[in-house]
């Protein structure tokens, strides 16, 4: 399960190694994240895609150790951020990391902003907390950040309340807040799902710009393969609490190997010829407390055999020597290639 590391590559900014997050529910233990490993280098974007309930958001929350405990709990694995294991960090240490080294933006900017404070206050608060600067300086920083994220007339906007801003503006404020302490890693959890396409384009463009400027690592969590294709360097495809495929973006889109990834691409209407039926992945995502044994995709997989139920396929590099890393967790890669 260890992600392959080539010595020539620069060290990873973030590396998840067999992360397991379980939830205690009335139906039993729910293995929402069950052995997730992926790597993200500084200045790059890692896209994490998967359907709802696949554990992609829980993984992100557990990086900042924001999974509510109880019922959730990190039960295994490591989260290496610049070589340090965040799982072993105390709450006090984590507080220094959150917002400072690692920042996060959420899907719903309306609920992620506090409605009773001005946006300026909220940005300044983060700055003062982590930088220990004075009020005036923090405000200056807030205006600076608002300018940076492309909010017109930031001197006025800094004193406005979240409800006075449009959805796109709010997401920009969220980004300004996240970027105010120059983090090294930005976790963007479905940052544009609630936004319209034209606004989504603006926000993604902004994140790309900031990244180019500061060498930020971005963990982009989304269900939209289009967004991933245009923004990520590497892609991790998650299904039922596991990474089933990990590859550079061009490689993944050109040669998807896992039957799930293949099915996902085939069901995109973008890639279907007009009039042609969409191909579908039959069935539904299994519930987190009742994942099937062995390969979790086998209940929906067109090429599953008995072996898939018995043995869980490991995530192994299937790329040839000299080629970029392309790891897949499937027993039947040859059959999948014929799909």
């Amino acid at each position, binding site marked *: 399960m260890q992600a392959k590391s080539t010595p020539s590559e620069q060290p990873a900014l973030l590396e998840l190694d067999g992360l397991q997050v379980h939830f205690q*529910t009335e139906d039993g233990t729910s293995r929402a994240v069950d052995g997730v490993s992926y790597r993200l280098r500084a200045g790059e974007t890692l896209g994490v895609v998967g359907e709802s309930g696949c554990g992609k958001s829980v993984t992100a929350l557990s990086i900042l150790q924001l999974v509510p405990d109880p019922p959730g709990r990190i039960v295994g694995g490591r989260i290496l951020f610049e070589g340090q294991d965040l799982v072993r960090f105390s709450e006090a240490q984590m507080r220094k990391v959150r917002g400072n080294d690692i920042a996060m933006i959420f899907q719903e900017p309306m609920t992620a902003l506090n409605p009773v404070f001005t946006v300026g206050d909220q940005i300044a608060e983060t700055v003062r907390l982590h930088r220990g600067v004075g009020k005036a300086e923090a405000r200056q920083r807030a205006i600076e950040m608002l300018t940076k994220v492309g909010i017109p007339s930031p001197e006025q906007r800094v004193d406005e309340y979240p409800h006075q801003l449009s959805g796109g503006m709010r997401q920009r404020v969220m980004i300004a807040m996240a970027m105010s302490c120059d983090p090294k890693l930005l976790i963007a959890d479905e940052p544009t799902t609630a936004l319209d396409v034209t606004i989504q384009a603006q926000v993604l463009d902004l994140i790309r710009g900031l990244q180019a400027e500061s060498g930020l690592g971005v963990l982009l969590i989304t269900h939209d393969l289009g967004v991933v294709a245009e923004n990520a360097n590497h892609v991790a495809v998650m299904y039922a609490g596991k990474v089933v495929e990990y590859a550079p973006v061009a490689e993944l889109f050109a040669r998807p190997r896992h039957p799930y990834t293949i099915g996902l691409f085939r069901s995109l209407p973008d890639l279907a010829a007009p009039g042609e039926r969409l191909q579908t992945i*039959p*069935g*539904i995502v299994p519930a987190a407390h009742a994942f099937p044994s062995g390969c979790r995709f086998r*209940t929906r997989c067109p090429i599953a055999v008995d072996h898939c139920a018995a043995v869980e396929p490991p995530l192994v590099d299937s790329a040839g020597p000299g080629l970029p890393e392309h790891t897949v967790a499937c027993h039947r890669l040859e059959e999948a290639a014929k799909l």
Partner: protein
Amino acid sequence: MSTTPTGASDARATAPGARTTEPSPPPLGVPPGPPPGPPAAIEYSRDYWDGVFQQLGRRRRVRWALALLALLYGLAIYAPLIANDRPYVLDAVDLREFSSAQRSLSGVTTNYARLMREGEAAFTAGLRPESQVRSFSEALAIERAAVDMRVTAMRRALPDDAAAPLDEYEKELAAFESLAISGSADQVSTAERGLRDTARELRNALTPLDLRNPDAGGVQLVPSKAYPLFESISRASAFFMSLWLCVLTWPLWNRLVNRVVLKGDRTRIRRARRWKFGAVLGFAALFAWVWGATVGGSAAFETSPYKAGLTSGDIVALRVVMPPVAMGFAETHINEAFRPPTWTALSELDEDGFYVRGSRTPLPDPVTGIVPPASPVEVRYGEPGLNHPLRYPLGTDKVGQDLLSRLLWGARISLTVGLISTTLLVTIGVILGSLAGYAGGRLDIAISRVIEVVQAFPAFFLILVAVAVIPSDVVPPIYSIVIVIALVGWTGVARLVRGEFLKLKSQDFVVAARALGFGTTRVVFRHILPNALGPVLVAASFAVASGILIESSISFLGFGVKLPIPSWGTVINESRDPSHWWIQVFPGFLIFVTVFCYNLVGEGLRDALDPRMKV
């Protein structure tokens, strides 16, 4: 149809064998391919209320609270059977009843005969303005019934061979009655005199044999069997008693009905649910009606003379079965006022009625210096002995009424007030709230203003004023309390329902119902209201608790039910002296437990109805 391509591809998804060995969360929507062999069994799942109750049942605290409430309501409903001064069974000669009938027969005969002789004209002329009976025929019927009652009472106790004088009397009475219609005035007066003499003679002819003095001779009376306690149970009590029995045994007979009558068919079981509720109510109503028509409902008084009669020997019993607590709620023991619970050492009395422990010995009056005398305590028939620890397990009040009995009976008022006021306020609140929420516009504004105004009323003082102003003989104060609690308390529910309606009105499933062309009634009652009721239920259980508290407070201030009817509040009101701790502690504890249980249930409901709950 299942051969649509979607269906086919979905069918492939179900791994071979998945249909036969169904995993715990079955793949619900996956359609079958071509039907293989016999059709699959229809699946069922718990509906919303099943889920809510199961969630409730999962919490131990709520289970305890529900069990305690069931117990309290059971005690309240069955209080007449548990604590009463009437015996269940009385197989006895009632000397007192016989002799009083015998003694008074001549009097009532005289009255009846005079009325009959003088006729309607004289009756009308002699009618006084304050008299209740205005018509001659009514007056005649009353007098005749008085005669009959005495004859029946005597006949019941007389052996057949000794009843000849009574037969004589009745013959003469019949003769007089026919004469009074057709005969001349002289004939009538003669007959009247004769009848009066016969009635007077009966007193000597039928002197009963006094068992304490058998030598004096007389008629040996026959014992008869009676069920005074059951006869005193009213129709309403019988209704609730049978209803509660059905409710408590629900799991038992429900299972039986499901298996035997409905043959385990789940479709029919689900459809039969409403029918079962109806059946239980119908059964209880039928039982109450039959009860009222045959046995019960004859007691007009809160106390009965049975214990005193048995003690004094006026009633000579072959067999008496008393209820477990043989104290009536209004039965006084005047020499045992403020007696502490009898299991405490403080409560011990000597033969003369003085407390053995000094601290409870009566103090000299501060003005006159006279030590109030204690007279010997009367231990009535069927009661535990003078210093028996269970004589008054919870002590007595200022007229020596048993606190245990009063608390059991008092539960009926206290618990009912909470329930009825809540039912009323929920009804008002749901109607007004849904009107405001669904109709919107001006109606909404109007109702919302009314809600704001009503919420500004100081509810407690309003109740006090209402109770003080409304004459208690027109509307009993307990009814005024209930009505005023409901009239000031509905606003919370109304707001809640209005909010729910506003929220649900724009939900897609309600829009869908309208798009399907359903009328307003159906949309409101099938689609919106059932979804709005959850929070109302939570509010209702808190409202019951607060209703009980309000009633107790009002009764504590002395504005509640009229004595001697007890409620928990009035019992506390019996004494505010801290040395009479039992008067405050026991009813206070009951109020606390009930309110606490209701709050627990309310909170449990709130959790169970939580949208995040897993059904």
